[in-house]
């Protein structure tokens, strides 16, 4: 018998026991636990708490990831990875092209950008940085 067979045999045995447990009726499960001398109610409750603590743990992990993502996004806003043109005319053209590429963003911007020509230069730059952070910035040479 090869070494590989030992791994296969062991895995197959545990898979079979798990598969069989999945197929047990409620009565079989309860009798099985009682016959093993275990406390049915206490063990079931321990399992329920184990599942609920897994939910709490997953939610905490999600909050931590969200906080990390938020921090990262703020960092990216401070240092734009996309070069924003110095020329004001090119900046406004870039903004127009970027908004044209993302109609949903343009729609959200309608109120603010109804009269884009009157936007202060600082606001144009700020908006371009935000679009860059969202990955919604067109390239300068398009």
């Amino acid at each position: 018998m090869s070494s590989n067979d030992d791994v296969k045999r062991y895995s197959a045995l545990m898979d079979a026991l798990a598969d069989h447990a999945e197929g047990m009726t409620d009565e079989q499960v309860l009798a099985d636990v009682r016959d093993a001398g275990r406390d049915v109610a206490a063990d079931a409750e321990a399992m329920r708490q184990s599942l609920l603590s897994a939910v709490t743990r997953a939610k905490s992990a999600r909050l931590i990831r969200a906080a990390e993502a938020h921090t990262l996004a703020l960092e990216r806003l401070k240092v734009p990875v996309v070069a924003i043109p110095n020329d004001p005319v090119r900046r406004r053209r870039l903004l127009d092209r970027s908004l044209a590429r993302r109609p949903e963003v343009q729609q959200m911007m309608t109120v603010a950008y109804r009269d884009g020509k009157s936007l202060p230069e600082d606001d144009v730059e700020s908006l371009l940085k935000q679009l860059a952070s969202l990955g919604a910035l067109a390239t300068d040479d398009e």
Partner: protein
Amino acid sequence: MRSSFFSLGCREQRKCRHVEDGRLMPARPKSEDARTDDEIVKAIISLSTADLLKLEKVAYFRSAKLRGLGLGIDPQDLVNDAIERTLDGRRKWPRSISLMTHLCGCLRSLANHCADEFAGKHVSMTPLDAEEIPADIALRSQLPTGERIHHAREFLAEILRRFDGDDEVILVAEGLAKEMSGPEIQKDLGLTEQGFETILKRLRHGLDRKQGWRL
């Protein structure tokens, strides 16, 4: 006017679920199968005593497979991962099936995935979904490491020692290890279904952590 610009960022962020490589990525569209956290908690609270004990057994044997291969993964690790994947949507919980069926499926595929990935001597509990195992990992899983072989052999020997004198259990365990089905084993050993179940029960109890089995 300026506040509108900032609200763009906030509104866009609310629609985003995560950041990849520093870029905010749009939320995945909510499918009809998507479940809220509350739905999952309510379903857990509604699980019956039998469901919970069955789930405990399944998680135990799925993780026992991994521990016998030298992986330090216990039932709680598998349960944690199954719940986390369900909550974040990586594992869809279809409305057509119960939470029990869903979790049993998760535990099965996670255990299989980890066993396969172990061939590379590296296991992460938050890897790709089981459906996404790269072909090269699947291929490597056919080539067990020396460590894996050592653990599997040791645990098989321990099972034989533990049931020394109970030939029925040993024969049934050997049949299962050869991937024989229950009816095939019954036919081979001349057992009734009830007789087979009784022997299987002795095997399960003997391998129960609370009966002293080291798994």
